[in-house]
């Protein structure tokens, strides 16, 4: 049976999601996930997102496919199942919504694809990625009001601080929703990350779920060769965090881990997920190497990648 990939950019779906919210929730403080997909559906969406990623970076012969492909299942899980939010109209303040921040902004392709397919902006806008006059900058930016982005990122090490600040504002506003942030593992070389880690634990910022994309790769090679990160669980536990581990490329394991992380919130500690992923996941020749961190596939490689990323019915932009 051919299953249609949901046309998530379709306005009808938006409106029904909003209507449902209006009917079931009288206050804005209880948004739900507007998609709430099954695991089978998530897999289809993830394949489509991976197609978007390789096509986007191929089109401009630049961008970062490796980390984007590795984190696709995480993004799809958050936006199509786990996080409670309202994609449209986008609200910068995000009151009554879970918030997501991307600290390692170079994996913008996966975020843009997921935001578009989750209904923040039109899927066809993905074709403008990294081109002149685009809202889809090489690294995420707020300057042109791209829906779904709340802070610029790309210069590494800053996103955790921003997320902690946003989480503290949620507490001040008595908003019970959560704040999510993703960082790369190589990014942990930035001292500011550890400043924020210390601060979040000291101040019991327990409405925060941070995730480290533990793919063991950075631009110049393996993380343990460039600047060894060592035992990240022990490090974050010593900093006062509640630490979980997850397989980031398996929905059957990732979704329960994300639910565990949610349950761990509200207990006086910030929550950290050390998420194992494989850079380039889904495209065999991009996997297991830092080589595809910031390199785009050529025409031939794109075709091979798209063959490997088959969906039952592609809805390429």
């Amino acid at each position, binding site marked *: 049976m051919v299953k249609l990939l949901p046309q998530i950019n379709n306005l009808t779906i938006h409106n029904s999601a909003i209507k449902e919210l209006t009917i079931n929730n009288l206050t804005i403080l209880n948004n739900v996930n507007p998609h709430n997909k099954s695991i089978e559906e998530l897999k289809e969406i993830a394949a489509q997102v991976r197609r978007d990623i390789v096509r986007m970076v191929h089109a401009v012969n630049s961008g970062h496919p490796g980390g984007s492909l590795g984190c696709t299942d995480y993004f799809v899980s958050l936006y199509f199942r786990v996080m409670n939010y309202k994609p449209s109209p986008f609200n*910068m*303040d*995000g*009151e009554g919504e879970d*918030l997501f*921040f991307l600290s390692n902004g170079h994996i913008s392709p996966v975020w843009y694809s997921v935001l578009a397919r989750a209904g923040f902006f039109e899927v066809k806008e993905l074709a403008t990625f990294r081109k002149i006059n685009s809202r889809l900058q090489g690294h995420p*930016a*707020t*300057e042109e009001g791209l829906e779904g982005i*709340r*802070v*610029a*990122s*790309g*210069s590494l*090490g*800053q*996103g*955790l*601080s*921003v*997320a*902690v*600040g*946003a*989480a*503290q*504002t*949620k507490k*001040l*506003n008595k*908003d019970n929703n959560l704040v999510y942030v993703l960082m790369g593992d190589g990014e942990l070389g930035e*001292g*500011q990350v550890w*400043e*924020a880690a*210390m*601060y979040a634990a*000291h*101040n019991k910022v327990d409405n925060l779920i941070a995730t480290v994309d533990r793919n063991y790769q950075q631009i110049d090679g393996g993380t343990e060769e460039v600047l060894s990160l060592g035992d990240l669980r022990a490090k974050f536990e010593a900093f006062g965090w509640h630490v979980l581990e997850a397989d980031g490329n398996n929905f059957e394991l990732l979704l329960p881990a994300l639910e565990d992380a949610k349950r761990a919130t509200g207990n006086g500690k910030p929550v950290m997920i050390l998420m194992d992923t494989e850079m380039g996941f889904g495209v065999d020749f991009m996997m297991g190497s830092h080589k595809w961190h910031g390199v785009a596939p050529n025409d031939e490689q794109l075709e091979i990648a798209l063959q490997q990323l088959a969906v039952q019915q592609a809805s390429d932009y």
Partner: protein
Amino acid sequence: MKEFKYTEKKDTRSGFGAGLLELGRTNENVVALCADLTGSLKMDAFEKEFPERFFQVGIAEANMMGLAAGMTIGGKIPFTGTFANFSTGRVYDQIRQSIAYSGKNVKICASHAGLTLGEDGATHQILEDVGMMKMLPHMTVINPCDFNQTKAATIAIAEHEGPVYLRFGRPAVPNFTPADQKFEIGKAVMLNEGTDVTILATGHLVWKAIEAGHKLAEKGINAEIINIHTIKPLDDEAILASVGKTKCVVTAEEHQLNGGLGDSVAQLLGRNLPTPLEMIGVNDSFGESGTPDQLMEKYGLSTDNIVAAAERVISRK
């Protein structure tokens, strides 16, 4: 020459502290962050009265800037407090990406700017902060002259949507601005109308410009003295009107000549009204330990330096 009366000398940082306390009472969205310098920044009264809205960050300024950016998401108006050096140079990239480029409503409040920090020496005497901050798109840069003006500026910037750099200092200086004078961002304050030379001063140099005006008057020179409390956006109209009348101008500031008020004025005049210009400021050098008065004398920022510059520029007309 108009007389300016004052009853006491007060430090501008205390003006900030007083303004912040008043904001705490009048605007519940105002929050304050400090990096282990609460007493020096005079933020202790706010901390005591509004502990739930005060965030002690520790010696971690990069994190503080990220936290502040995040706290704006949800409607808070964060005021960060630390020395000017640690408010700018130390955290330039954090301000650039997470605050300025992201258009966040953060108020960066910076004390102990310039030479008048005194005995701590050049490591702490930042003289490049205005230049760094004014180069950032979206950033407003304010350097008030006395206690009352700093208090009024602190209150005014809370009403302004967007990032602001507010610079003030440590020493007690004559407090002559009327307590009820409304602070208008970007609107120069005419202190003394004159016809022979325009003196544009900012911060602690404003009072010295007034002293210079009296000395010039004794020599029969009628100086027009304008307080440029906002360096960006510059009050082009007021400056061009004055210089059009006097045909020569002196700028005076406690900052490097490169990147400061004089630099902005030179750009304005060069493009619109080429006019003889003399600049009082620090000429491409670091400061050193000493008393504030000794340092202002040694580095050419005294009242007599302004007088001499005025006579020099008049002779160039």
